[in-house]
């Protein structure tokens, strides 16, 4: 047996993860980003620290003095922005995102009730995993990211037939459709769906994503745009909201996702 004791590992590998670990704490990021108003700060902190038991009381308390839309945008959403920042800096990881998002949603649900006619989101997105494709984790994560950036989402689930996707789009008129495929043999559903949509005069961008899909494929059919990673979706959606059509998204893709 060759012994591994005393081996000089520096020749073999470098633990960049350990060397590069970020000693920043959630607190130090929070200090720079959290609202100064103590009531809103408390709300934001429940999201930042994923306290889904505390978020209800904190929001209810805040609503006594602060307008509901401000509780959402200047409290809950700011907390989530801290979380996103911490995620980008490798201090928070996926579970924190998931739990913080859940916390935020509980808070929003309470605040929203006080807004006549409900809260207006940035826009509606219809999401699904392709017909025949059971891989849905990526889509689920992307859905959470979209919700936490202020979009409303209709999540149609996985293995969704092309006809169902088209019907849903016709019905609910989203600003963006997303499809996830992790198999080379299921991603072919996207151009079909896009074609049927075009046939009905619908020009909504169709974002093709998921492990099997690459940018070339996503841009090989009309309406198709690409997103590589879940966190890239909100910046793209923001551009669509700002009036970009699918052609313009394609042209500026590198710049749009550059920061994400």
């Amino acid at each position, binding site marked *: *047996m*060759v012994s*591994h004791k005393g*081996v000089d*590992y520096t020749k*073999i*590998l470098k*633990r*960049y*993860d*350990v060397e*590069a*670990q970020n000693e920043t704490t959630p607190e130090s990021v929070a200090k720079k980003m959290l609202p100064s108003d103590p009531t809103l700060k408390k709300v934001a902190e429940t999201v930042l620290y994923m306290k889904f038991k505390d978020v209800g009381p904190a929001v209810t308390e805040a609503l006594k003095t602060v307008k509901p839309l401000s509780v959402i945008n200047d409290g809950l959403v700011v907390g989530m922005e801290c979380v996103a920042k911490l*995620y980008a800096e*490798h*201090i*928070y*990881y*996926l*579970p924190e995102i*998931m*739990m913080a998002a859940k916390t935020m949603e509980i808070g929003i649900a309470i605040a929203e009730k006080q807004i006549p006619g409900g809260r207006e989101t940035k826009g509606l997105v219809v999401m699904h995993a392709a017909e*025949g*494709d*059971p891989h*849905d*984790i990526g889509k*689920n*994560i992307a859905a959470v990211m979209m919700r936490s950036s202020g979009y409303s989402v209709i999540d149609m689930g996985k*293995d969704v037939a092309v006809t169902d996707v088209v019907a849903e789009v016709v019905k609910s008129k989203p600003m963006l459709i997303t499809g996830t495929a992790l*198999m*080379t*043999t*299921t*991603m*072919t559903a996207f151009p079909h769906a896009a074609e049927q949509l075009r046939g009905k005069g619908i020009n909504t961008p169709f974002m093709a994503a998921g492990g099997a899909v690459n940018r070339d*494929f996503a841009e090989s059919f009309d309406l198709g745009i690409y997103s590589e990673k879940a966190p890239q979706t909100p910046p793209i959606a923001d551009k669509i909201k700002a009036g970009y059509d699918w052609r313009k998204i394609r042209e500026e893709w590198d710049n749009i996702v550059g920061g994400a």
Partner: protein
Amino acid sequence: MSVTRYTKMAYSSADEMVFGTAKSPVSYGFGIKVGAGRVIPELNYAPRPGSEKDPARLAKEYVDYISKDVLERAVTVGFPDVQLETEWVSQMGTPKMAIPVVEGQKAICEKYHEEYGINCAVRHTIPDQREAGEEGLRTGMKGHHAYPEALFKAAEVACENGADVFSVETMGGKELSDYATTNGDVVAFLFGVGYLGSIDMEYVWKEFVNICKKNKTIAGGDTNCAGANTAMFMAGGYLDNDVQRTYSAVTRAIASARTLVAWECGASGPDKDCGYEGPIAKSIAGKPCAQEGKNCQCAHCDLQGNLMAQVCDLWSNESVEYHPEFGGSSVQCWLGSLGYEVSLMNTAIATGQEKTLRDLYMISDRSRGPEGYVLAYDNAYKIGEAIAKEGNNLYLRSRAAGITAAKLIKAGNEAKEIALTNKQKDVLVNIIKDLEALPDSEDKFFEYCDKKYSDLVPLYNKKNYGF
């Protein structure tokens, strides 16, 4: 079929395990002998987009393009053996799509075997398209796709038409492992994969083994791709930040207790390449296992590319999409990579240096990350022992696997054998705490989890597991 639980180790020491040899070798196909003193390359591929459109096109893609290219290249470079693996695309759920592929691959193997004397065989890995929730994993539930009947039907189609080896990556427990991994909840993983997943494995594998027996197909095995691989995949490498690798390492150990069940139901191995739990399972059962690593970069890159070769019997590329490269088609390029690695291993065997090479593979990645650390064959053996000790209890053995893995990492970190980031350490400490806090009684465990996850995981439905 009866189920015989493992309560003893197949090997008397970790050092006894090595690539190319298993306690119980298996022969099949055209001259293939797995675990009988040499390693065999196993090549897996995905058809090009569009080839799924009709049966003729799909069969042409799999047989005339992919299989032919692979066999041709194997002969060109002088590889004595090659195994093909077809992971069925969802369209192969209908026999009309599946049969020409299965028959065609059998025929082309025979042709090359006769023409050149190359040893070859095909593994068919059918998809488990059952869905949790109301849909149902068992008969008599709502399943609009009428599963699990469709699953067993697919197994029959594969075995009756020429599969040499049969495998599935079953879904039992996936609704919980998806939740567990995205939320960092190791107890949910233990409940879903270690416990419920094992129960589901038993349900389906008894039937699979029957079908295989009837058709003289080798019942290979299962892997927890949906659980531990998803975790590992998402934990990624040093620049990824979704899932902690200490979490992923522990899920791997838990998954190994589930993977064993196929073999306990009478399957013989080789199990599937993406079952990174192979070293643990092999240490307990002595059955041959397929593995992947260094030469599966086409499919993914993990932190134990060399280490996974340490005790493999088949060496796989996981999967590559069929397309052209300067060096030939993609399947040929990756076969070349696999084949040369296998040649190196077999050279080591032929010169009596196999343990040295095994150790080099292992040391290369032992400290690269916690996942490789627990799979290093000495640690894998210890996890195996923990499982065998509680072999008769599906819950306790998976928990023991998880705790043992976690503690091995902790001890290794303290001994400066394996560095961890602070975050990895925090998560590890919590895992040990969470797993140790669980009740020792299976019933109490079930009760606790059933209640907790009924709330948290909408798709969870105990009926799927016969409760």
